[in-house]
Protein backbone atom coordinates (compact mmCIF):
# COMPACT_ATOMS: atom_id res chain seq x y z
CA UNK A 1 0.00 0.00 0.00
CA UNK A 2 1.33 3.32 -0.95
CA UNK A 3 -0.02 5.87 1.49
CA UNK A 4 1.49 9.29 1.40
CA UNK A 5 2.78 10.40 4.76
CA UNK A 6 1.23 13.62 6.03
CA UNK A 7 3.40 16.64 5.63
CA UNK A 8 5.31 17.21 8.84
CA UNK A 9 6.36 20.67 7.95
CA UNK A 10 4.34 23.49 9.43
CA UNK A 11 2.92 25.35 6.41
CA UNK A 12 3.56 28.63 8.18
CA UNK A 13 7.28 28.04 7.67
CA UNK A 14 6.73 28.62 3.96
CA UNK A 15 5.79 32.23 4.52
CA UNK A 16 8.20 34.51 2.73
CA UNK A 17 8.74 36.98 5.60
CA UNK A 18 11.72 36.41 7.90
CA UNK A 19 11.00 35.72 11.53
CA UNK A 20 10.68 38.83 13.61
CA UNK A 21 9.64 39.09 17.22
CA UNK A 22 8.70 42.72 16.76
CA UNK A 23 5.10 43.09 15.71
CA UNK A 24 4.48 46.76 16.44
CA UNK A 25 2.21 46.24 19.43
CA UNK A 26 2.69 48.01 22.73
CA UNK A 27 3.72 46.38 25.96
CA UNK A 28 0.72 45.38 28.01
CA UNK A 29 -0.28 48.23 30.29
CA UNK A 30 0.60 47.54 33.94
CA UNK A 31 -2.59 48.72 35.58
CA UNK A 32 -1.22 48.17 39.10
CA UNK A 33 0.72 51.42 38.83
CA UNK A 34 -2.28 53.43 37.63
CA UNK A 35 -5.13 54.66 39.80
CA UNK A 36 -8.15 52.36 39.69
CA UNK A 37 -11.27 53.74 38.00
CA UNK A 38 -13.20 53.50 41.27
CA UNK A 39 -11.32 55.33 44.02
CA UNK A 40 -13.91 56.53 46.56
CA UNK A 41 -11.48 58.90 48.32
CA UNK A 42 -11.74 60.93 45.13
CA UNK A 43 -15.50 61.33 45.19
CA UNK A 44 -15.99 62.31 41.56
CA UNK A 45 -14.79 58.86 40.53
CA UNK A 46 -17.69 57.06 42.21
CA UNK A 47 -20.34 57.71 39.53
CA UNK A 48 -17.83 57.93 36.70
CA UNK A 49 -16.02 54.61 37.03
CA UNK A 50 -16.92 51.61 34.87
CA UNK A 51 -17.79 48.56 36.96
CA UNK A 52 -17.40 45.83 34.34
CA UNK A 53 -14.01 44.40 33.48
CA UNK A 54 -12.20 46.05 30.62
CA UNK A 55 -12.10 43.83 27.54
CA UNK A 56 -8.45 43.13 26.67
CA UNK A 57 -7.76 43.19 22.94
CA UNK A 58 -4.52 42.64 21.07
CA UNK A 59 -3.17 45.73 19.42
CA UNK A 60 -4.33 46.03 15.82
CA UNK A 61 -3.56 48.78 13.37
CA UNK A 62 -6.27 50.83 15.13
CA UNK A 63 -4.15 50.95 18.31
CA UNK A 64 -0.57 51.09 17.01
CA UNK A 65 -1.32 54.09 14.81
CA UNK A 66 -2.20 57.53 16.06
CA UNK A 67 -2.33 61.14 14.95
CA UNK A 68 0.86 62.70 13.63
CA UNK A 69 1.57 66.33 14.46
CA UNK A 70 4.09 68.77 13.07
CA UNK A 71 5.46 72.23 13.66
CA UNK A 72 2.74 73.56 11.36
CA UNK A 73 0.24 72.75 14.10
CA UNK A 74 1.95 75.06 16.59
CA UNK A 75 2.62 78.75 16.91
CA UNK A 76 5.99 80.29 17.89
CA UNK A 77 4.92 81.24 21.44
CA UNK A 78 3.08 78.05 22.26
CA UNK A 79 5.75 76.80 24.70
CA UNK A 80 6.13 80.13 26.50
CA UNK A 81 3.35 80.61 29.04
CA UNK A 82 5.03 83.79 30.29
CA UNK A 83 4.49 85.44 26.92
CA UNK A 84 1.74 83.59 25.06
CA UNK A 85 -1.09 85.50 26.76
CA UNK A 86 0.75 88.58 28.01
CA UNK A 87 -1.27 91.77 27.50
CA UNK A 88 0.64 94.52 29.30
CA UNK A 89 3.48 92.73 31.08
CA UNK A 90 4.62 89.41 32.47
CA UNK A 91 2.36 87.26 34.65
CA UNK A 92 2.82 87.27 38.44
CA UNK A 93 4.64 84.35 39.99
CA UNK A 94 7.84 82.36 40.30
CA UNK A 95 9.38 82.06 36.87
CA UNK A 96 10.24 78.46 36.03
CA UNK A 97 11.35 76.29 33.15
CA UNK A 98 9.92 72.77 32.95
CA UNK A 99 11.87 70.37 30.81
CA UNK A 100 12.43 66.66 30.32
CA UNK A 101 12.15 63.80 27.90
CA UNK A 102 9.27 61.71 26.68
CA UNK A 103 10.55 58.12 26.68
CA UNK A 104 8.97 54.75 26.18
CA UNK A 105 9.41 51.81 28.53
CA UNK A 106 12.42 50.59 26.54
CA UNK A 107 14.16 53.87 27.38
CA UNK A 108 14.05 55.24 23.84
CA UNK A 109 13.10 58.87 23.36
CA UNK A 110 9.76 59.46 21.66
CA UNK A 111 10.49 62.02 18.93
CA UNK A 112 8.13 64.59 17.39
CA UNK A 113 5.29 63.87 19.73
CA UNK A 114 2.84 66.46 20.93
CA UNK A 115 2.98 67.47 24.60
CA UNK A 116 0.27 69.80 25.90
CA UNK A 117 0.14 71.38 29.35
CA UNK A 118 -2.24 73.52 31.36
CA UNK A 119 -2.28 74.94 34.86
CA UNK A 120 -3.65 77.44 37.34
CA UNK A 121 -1.94 80.81 37.78
CA UNK A 122 0.36 81.67 40.69
CA UNK A 123 -2.67 82.27 42.93
CA UNK A 124 -4.24 78.91 42.14
CA UNK A 125 -6.94 80.24 39.78
CA UNK A 126 -7.66 78.78 36.35
CA UNK A 127 -8.65 80.90 33.40
CA UNK A 128 -11.83 78.91 32.92
CA UNK A 129 -15.44 80.01 32.88
CA UNK A 130 -16.29 77.29 35.40
CA UNK A 131 -13.59 78.18 37.97
CA UNK A 132 -15.01 80.47 40.66
CA UNK A 133 -12.18 80.37 43.24
CA UNK A 134 -11.73 83.77 44.88
CA UNK A 135 -8.07 84.18 43.85
CA UNK A 136 -7.91 86.63 40.95
CA UNK A 137 -7.40 85.90 37.26
CA UNK A 138 -4.02 87.17 36.08
CA UNK A 139 -4.65 89.38 33.04
CA UNK A 140 -1.29 88.33 31.59
CA UNK A 141 -1.59 84.59 32.05
CA UNK A 142 -3.56 82.13 29.95
CA UNK A 143 -2.26 78.95 31.53
CA UNK A 144 -1.80 76.60 28.60
CA UNK A 145 0.84 75.69 26.08
CA UNK A 146 2.24 72.92 23.95
CA UNK A 147 5.44 71.64 22.41
CA UNK A 148 6.69 68.97 20.08
CA UNK A 149 9.51 66.78 21.36
CA UNK A 150 12.73 66.93 19.34
CA UNK A 151 14.30 63.87 17.76
CA UNK A 152 15.57 62.66 21.14
CA UNK A 153 12.20 63.08 22.87
CA UNK A 154 13.22 66.29 24.66
CA UNK A 155 10.73 69.08 25.38
CA UNK A 156 10.76 72.28 27.40
CA UNK A 157 8.56 75.22 28.21
CA UNK A 158 8.57 78.35 30.36
CA UNK A 159 5.85 79.35 32.79
CA UNK A 160 5.17 80.56 36.32
CA UNK A 161 4.77 78.09 39.15
CA UNK A 162 1.07 77.38 39.73
CA UNK A 163 -0.45 77.87 43.17
CA UNK A 164 -2.37 75.29 45.23
CA UNK A 165 -6.13 75.74 45.45
CA UNK A 166 -9.11 74.37 47.37
CA UNK A 167 -11.64 72.09 45.74
CA UNK A 168 -14.85 70.36 46.70
CA UNK A 169 -14.05 66.86 47.86
CA UNK A 170 -13.75 67.08 51.62
CA UNK A 171 -14.43 70.56 53.00
CA UNK A 172 -10.73 71.29 53.39
CA UNK A 173 -9.22 69.54 50.35
CA UNK A 174 -6.42 71.39 48.56
CA UNK A 175 -4.70 70.40 45.37
CA UNK A 176 -0.91 70.50 45.54
CA UNK A 177 0.62 72.81 42.95
CA UNK A 178 0.54 70.88 39.67
CA UNK A 179 0.71 71.11 35.91
CA UNK A 180 -1.52 68.92 33.75
CA UNK A 181 0.18 67.08 30.88
CA UNK A 182 -1.32 65.44 27.81
CA UNK A 183 0.98 63.25 25.70
CA UNK A 184 0.35 61.30 22.50
CA UNK A 185 3.23 58.96 21.60
CA UNK A 186 3.20 57.23 18.23
CA UNK A 187 0.08 55.11 18.68
CA UNK A 188 -3.35 55.89 20.09
CA UNK A 189 -2.90 53.17 22.75
CA UNK A 190 -0.08 55.27 24.28
CA UNK A 191 -2.36 58.24 24.87
CA UNK A 192 -1.86 59.57 28.38
CA UNK A 193 -2.97 62.43 30.59
CA UNK A 194 -1.20 62.98 33.89
CA UNK A 195 -0.17 65.70 36.33
CA UNK A 196 3.26 66.90 37.40
CA UNK A 197 3.87 67.93 41.00
CA UNK A 198 6.68 69.89 42.62
CA UNK A 199 9.35 68.51 44.92
CA UNK A 200 8.80 69.36 48.56
CA UNK A 201 5.11 70.27 48.41
CA UNK A 202 3.54 69.25 51.76
CA UNK A 203 0.12 68.80 50.09
CA UNK A 204 1.35 65.87 48.00
CA UNK A 205 0.93 63.03 50.54
CA UNK A 206 -2.59 64.14 51.52
CA UNK A 207 -4.06 64.85 48.09
CA UNK A 208 -7.15 62.68 47.42
CA UNK A 209 -6.38 62.61 43.69
CA UNK A 210 -2.67 61.81 43.95
CA UNK A 211 -3.29 59.11 46.51
CA UNK A 212 -5.57 57.25 44.11
CA UNK A 213 -2.26 55.89 42.80
CA UNK A 214 -1.70 52.60 44.64
CA UNK A 215 2.04 52.34 43.97
CA UNK A 216 4.36 54.60 45.99
CA UNK A 217 7.11 54.57 43.35
CA UNK A 218 4.61 55.45 40.62
CA UNK A 219 3.42 58.38 42.73
CA UNK A 220 6.99 59.56 43.33
CA UNK A 221 7.62 59.54 39.58
CA UNK A 222 5.00 62.29 39.20
CA UNK A 223 7.04 64.63 41.42
CA UNK A 224 9.46 66.82 39.49
CA UNK A 225 12.73 67.64 41.26
CA UNK A 226 14.23 71.09 41.31
CA UNK A 227 16.90 71.10 38.60
CA UNK A 228 19.25 73.89 39.56
CA UNK A 229 21.62 73.04 36.71
CA UNK A 230 18.89 73.97 34.25
CA UNK A 231 17.96 77.21 36.01
CA UNK A 232 18.70 80.48 34.26
CA UNK A 233 20.66 82.66 36.73
CA UNK A 234 18.80 85.82 37.74
CA UNK A 235 15.80 84.72 35.66
CA UNK A 236 14.11 81.35 36.25
CA UNK A 237 14.32 78.20 38.34
CA UNK A 238 13.88 74.86 36.58
CA UNK A 239 12.13 71.55 37.23
CA UNK A 240 12.81 68.30 35.41
CA UNK A 241 9.94 66.01 34.42
CA UNK A 242 10.45 62.88 32.33
CA UNK A 243 7.36 61.11 31.03
CA UNK A 244 7.32 57.41 30.16
CA UNK A 245 4.85 55.99 27.65
CA UNK A 246 4.19 52.34 26.98
CA UNK A 247 7.02 50.48 25.26
CA UNK A 248 6.64 49.36 21.70
CA UNK A 249 7.74 46.17 19.99
CA UNK A 250 8.63 47.84 16.73
CA UNK A 251 11.51 48.77 14.52
CA UNK A 252 9.39 49.66 11.53
CA UNK A 253 10.24 53.32 11.30
CA UNK A 254 13.38 53.94 13.25
CA UNK A 255 14.73 56.13 10.50
CA UNK A 256 11.56 58.10 10.10
CA UNK A 257 10.83 61.14 12.20
CA UNK A 258 7.17 60.31 12.79
CA UNK A 259 7.66 56.80 14.12
CA UNK A 260 8.41 55.39 17.56
Amino acid at each position, binding site marked *: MNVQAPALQDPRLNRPEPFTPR*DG*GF*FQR*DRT*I*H*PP*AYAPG*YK*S*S*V*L*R*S*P*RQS*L*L*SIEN*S*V*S*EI*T*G*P*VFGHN*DLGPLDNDLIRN*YAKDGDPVGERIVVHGRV*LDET*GRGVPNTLV*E*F*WQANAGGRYR*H*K*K*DTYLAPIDPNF*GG*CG*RALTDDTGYYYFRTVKPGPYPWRNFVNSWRPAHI*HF*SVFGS*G*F*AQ*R*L*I*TQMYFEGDPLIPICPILTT*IPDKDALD*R*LVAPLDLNAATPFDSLAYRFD*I*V*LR*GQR*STYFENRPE*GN
Partner: protein
Amino acid sequence: MPQPLNYLKETASQTAGPYVHIGLIPAMAGFDIFEKNFSNVLVTPNTKGDRIVLEGKVLDGSGSPLRDVLLEIWQANAAGCYNHPADRSAGARDQDFRGWGRGGSDFESGLVTFETIKPGAIVDGAGRKCAPHVNVWIVARGINIGLNTRLYFSDEEAANTADPVLTLVEPPVRRKTLIATRSERAGKTVYSFTINLQGPDETVFFDV
Protein backbone atom coordinates in the same frame (compact mmCIF):
# COMPACT_ATOMS: atom_id res chain seq x y z
CA MET B 1 20.34 36.67 40.22
CA PRO B 2 19.44 36.77 36.52
CA GLN B 3 20.30 39.82 34.48
CA PRO B 4 18.04 42.77 35.18
CA LEU B 5 15.63 43.75 32.41
CA ASN B 6 15.80 47.45 33.18
CA TYR B 7 12.56 48.46 31.54
CA LEU B 8 11.17 51.78 32.60
CA LYS B 9 7.66 51.99 34.05
CA GLU B 10 4.89 53.90 32.35
CA THR B 11 4.05 57.23 33.98
CA ALA B 12 0.90 56.93 36.09
CA SER B 13 -2.27 58.48 34.75
CA GLN B 14 -4.08 61.26 36.58
CA THR B 15 -7.52 62.69 35.91
CA ALA B 16 -7.80 65.41 33.27
CA GLY B 17 -9.87 67.35 35.82
CA PRO B 18 -12.74 69.78 35.28
CA TYR B 19 -10.61 72.35 33.47
CA VAL B 20 -9.24 70.09 30.72
CA HIS B 21 -10.61 72.57 28.18
CA ILE B 22 -7.95 75.14 29.06
CA GLY B 23 -5.17 72.97 27.76
CA LEU B 24 -6.82 71.06 24.97
CA ILE B 25 -9.67 73.21 23.64
CA PRO B 26 -9.13 76.66 25.19
CA ALA B 27 -11.96 78.30 23.26
CA MET B 28 -14.38 76.24 25.34
CA ALA B 29 -12.74 77.50 28.53
CA GLY B 30 -13.66 80.97 27.35
CA PHE B 31 -10.51 82.44 25.81
CA ASP B 32 -8.51 82.66 22.64
CA ILE B 33 -4.78 81.98 22.84
CA PHE B 34 -3.38 79.79 20.05
CA GLU B 35 -3.11 80.76 16.41
CA LYS B 36 -4.07 77.22 15.45
CA ASN B 37 -6.53 75.08 17.33
CA PHE B 38 -7.54 71.46 17.28
CA SER B 39 -11.22 70.76 17.00
CA ASN B 40 -14.10 68.37 16.49
CA VAL B 41 -14.14 69.00 12.74
CA LEU B 42 -11.98 66.37 11.03
CA VAL B 43 -12.89 67.21 7.45
CA THR B 44 -11.75 69.87 5.03
CA PRO B 45 -13.55 70.58 1.74
CA ASN B 46 -11.06 68.28 0.02
CA THR B 47 -11.41 65.26 2.31
CA LYS B 48 -12.61 62.16 0.47
CA GLY B 49 -15.57 60.19 1.77
CA ASP B 50 -19.15 60.42 2.94
CA ARG B 51 -19.70 63.24 5.43
CA ILE B 52 -21.21 62.15 8.72
CA VAL B 53 -21.92 63.68 12.09
CA LEU B 54 -21.12 61.65 15.21
CA GLU B 55 -23.23 62.86 18.09
CA GLY B 56 -23.72 61.57 21.58
CA LYS B 57 -23.44 61.85 25.31
CA VAL B 58 -21.51 60.20 28.10
CA LEU B 59 -23.75 59.27 31.04
CA ASP B 60 -22.66 58.69 34.64
CA GLY B 61 -23.99 56.07 37.04
CA SER B 62 -27.06 58.19 37.79
CA GLY B 63 -27.90 58.48 34.10
CA SER B 64 -26.88 62.15 33.99
CA PRO B 65 -24.79 63.44 31.10
CA LEU B 66 -21.19 64.44 31.82
CA ARG B 67 -21.03 68.13 30.97
CA ASP B 68 -17.27 68.44 31.37
CA VAL B 69 -16.10 65.43 29.37
CA LEU B 70 -13.59 65.47 26.51
CA LEU B 71 -13.59 62.88 23.75
CA GLU B 72 -10.95 62.21 21.16
CA ILE B 73 -11.56 60.08 18.10
CA TRP B 74 -9.06 58.33 15.83
CA GLN B 75 -10.18 56.68 12.65
CA ALA B 76 -9.22 55.40 9.23
CA ASN B 77 -10.02 57.34 6.08
CA ALA B 78 -12.69 56.40 3.56
CA ALA B 79 -10.32 53.81 2.04
CA GLY B 80 -9.77 52.12 5.41
CA CYS B 81 -6.28 53.52 5.85
CA TYR B 82 -4.93 55.31 8.91
CA ASN B 83 -2.83 58.39 8.26
CA HIS B 84 0.23 56.94 10.01
CA PRO B 85 3.36 55.13 8.75
CA ALA B 86 2.57 51.97 10.73
CA ASP B 87 -0.49 51.41 8.54
CA ARG B 88 0.99 49.26 5.80
CA SER B 89 -2.30 48.40 4.14
CA ALA B 90 -2.84 48.96 0.44
CA GLY B 91 -5.51 51.61 0.98
CA ALA B 92 -4.81 55.04 -0.39
CA ARG B 93 -3.72 57.81 1.97
CA ASP B 94 -5.79 60.99 2.03
CA GLN B 95 -3.56 63.97 2.72
CA ASP B 96 -6.68 66.00 3.57
CA PHE B 97 -7.67 63.79 6.46
CA ARG B 98 -5.61 63.46 9.64
CA GLY B 99 -8.20 61.13 11.11
CA TRP B 100 -8.13 62.62 14.58
CA GLY B 101 -10.24 65.16 16.42
CA ARG B 102 -11.26 66.21 19.90
CA GLY B 103 -14.44 67.65 21.25
CA GLY B 104 -15.80 68.77 24.58
CA SER B 105 -19.34 68.22 25.72
CA ASP B 106 -21.73 71.15 25.80
CA PHE B 107 -21.71 72.68 29.29
CA GLU B 108 -25.54 72.52 29.43
CA SER B 109 -26.69 69.49 27.45
CA GLY B 110 -23.59 67.31 27.59
CA LEU B 111 -23.79 66.72 23.84
CA VAL B 112 -20.52 65.98 22.00
CA THR B 113 -20.38 66.16 18.20
CA PHE B 114 -17.81 65.42 15.51
CA GLU B 115 -17.93 66.28 11.84
CA THR B 116 -16.04 63.57 10.01
CA ILE B 117 -16.32 60.97 7.26
CA LYS B 118 -17.39 57.40 7.53
CA PRO B 119 -14.24 55.25 7.73
CA GLY B 120 -13.73 52.32 5.41
CA ALA B 121 -13.28 48.75 6.58
CA ILE B 122 -9.72 48.06 7.74
CA VAL B 123 -7.50 45.01 7.77
CA ASP B 124 -5.90 44.13 11.09
CA GLY B 125 -2.38 42.78 11.63
CA ALA B 126 -3.55 39.18 11.19
CA GLY B 127 -5.10 39.98 7.81
CA ARG B 128 -8.67 39.92 9.10
CA LYS B 129 -11.17 42.43 7.79
CA CYS B 130 -12.58 44.67 10.51
CA ALA B 131 -15.91 46.47 10.35
CA PRO B 132 -15.65 50.25 9.93
CA HIS B 133 -15.18 51.81 13.34
CA VAL B 134 -14.02 54.90 15.16
CA ASN B 135 -11.69 54.62 18.16
CA VAL B 136 -12.77 56.77 21.10
CA TRP B 137 -10.81 57.98 24.13
CA ILE B 138 -12.63 59.61 27.05
CA VAL B 139 -11.24 61.82 29.80
CA ALA B 140 -12.92 63.97 32.43
CA ARG B 141 -13.00 64.93 36.08
CA GLY B 142 -13.55 61.71 38.01
CA ILE B 143 -12.04 59.51 35.29
CA ASN B 144 -8.66 58.45 36.65
CA ILE B 145 -7.33 56.88 33.48
CA GLY B 146 -8.60 57.55 29.97
CA LEU B 147 -11.27 55.13 28.78
CA ASN B 148 -10.94 53.43 25.40
CA THR B 149 -13.97 52.32 23.46
CA ARG B 150 -15.08 52.08 19.83
CA LEU B 151 -18.04 53.16 17.75
CA TYR B 152 -19.34 50.88 15.02
CA PHE B 153 -22.12 51.75 12.56
CA SER B 154 -25.69 50.49 12.67
CA ASP B 155 -25.91 50.17 8.88
CA GLU B 156 -22.93 47.78 8.73
CA GLU B 157 -24.71 44.81 10.18
CA ALA B 158 -22.98 42.14 8.10
CA ALA B 159 -19.52 43.55 8.72
CA ASN B 160 -20.26 44.02 12.43
CA THR B 161 -21.30 40.39 12.76
CA ALA B 162 -17.90 39.29 11.47
CA ASP B 163 -15.77 41.87 13.25
CA PRO B 164 -12.94 40.25 15.25
CA VAL B 165 -13.31 42.64 18.18
CA LEU B 166 -17.10 42.90 18.39
CA THR B 167 -17.35 39.12 18.37
CA LEU B 168 -15.09 38.97 21.44
CA VAL B 169 -17.66 40.85 23.50
CA GLU B 170 -19.47 38.55 25.92
CA PRO B 171 -22.28 38.30 26.63
CA PRO B 172 -23.32 39.26 23.07
CA VAL B 173 -26.06 41.53 24.37
CA ARG B 174 -23.33 44.02 25.33
CA ARG B 175 -22.19 44.44 21.70
CA LYS B 176 -24.98 46.93 21.06
CA THR B 177 -23.30 49.36 23.45
CA LEU B 178 -20.67 49.94 20.75
CA ILE B 179 -23.00 50.63 17.83
CA ALA B 180 -23.99 54.14 16.77
CA THR B 181 -27.44 54.52 15.25
CA ARG B 182 -27.84 56.08 11.83
CA SER B 183 -30.45 58.70 11.02
CA GLU B 184 -30.88 61.48 8.46
CA ARG B 185 -31.43 65.01 9.67
CA ALA B 186 -31.60 68.18 7.55
CA GLY B 187 -29.72 66.51 4.74
CA LYS B 188 -26.98 65.20 7.01
CA THR B 189 -26.16 61.66 8.01
CA VAL B 190 -26.00 61.48 11.79
CA TYR B 191 -24.78 58.57 13.89
CA SER B 192 -25.95 58.84 17.51
CA PHE B 193 -24.30 57.16 20.44
CA THR B 194 -24.66 56.93 24.21
CA ILE B 195 -21.70 55.95 26.35
CA ASN B 196 -22.83 54.62 29.74
CA LEU B 197 -20.08 54.62 32.34
CA GLN B 198 -22.09 52.35 34.63
CA GLY B 199 -25.41 50.53 34.90
CA PRO B 200 -27.15 47.68 33.10
CA ASP B 201 -26.18 49.13 29.71
CA GLU B 202 -22.59 49.92 30.67
CA THR B 203 -20.56 50.50 27.52
CA VAL B 204 -17.81 48.04 26.72
CA PHE B 205 -14.44 49.62 27.44
CA PHE B 206 -11.20 48.13 26.22
CA ASP B 207 -7.81 47.50 27.72
CA VAL B 208 -5.85 48.15 24.56
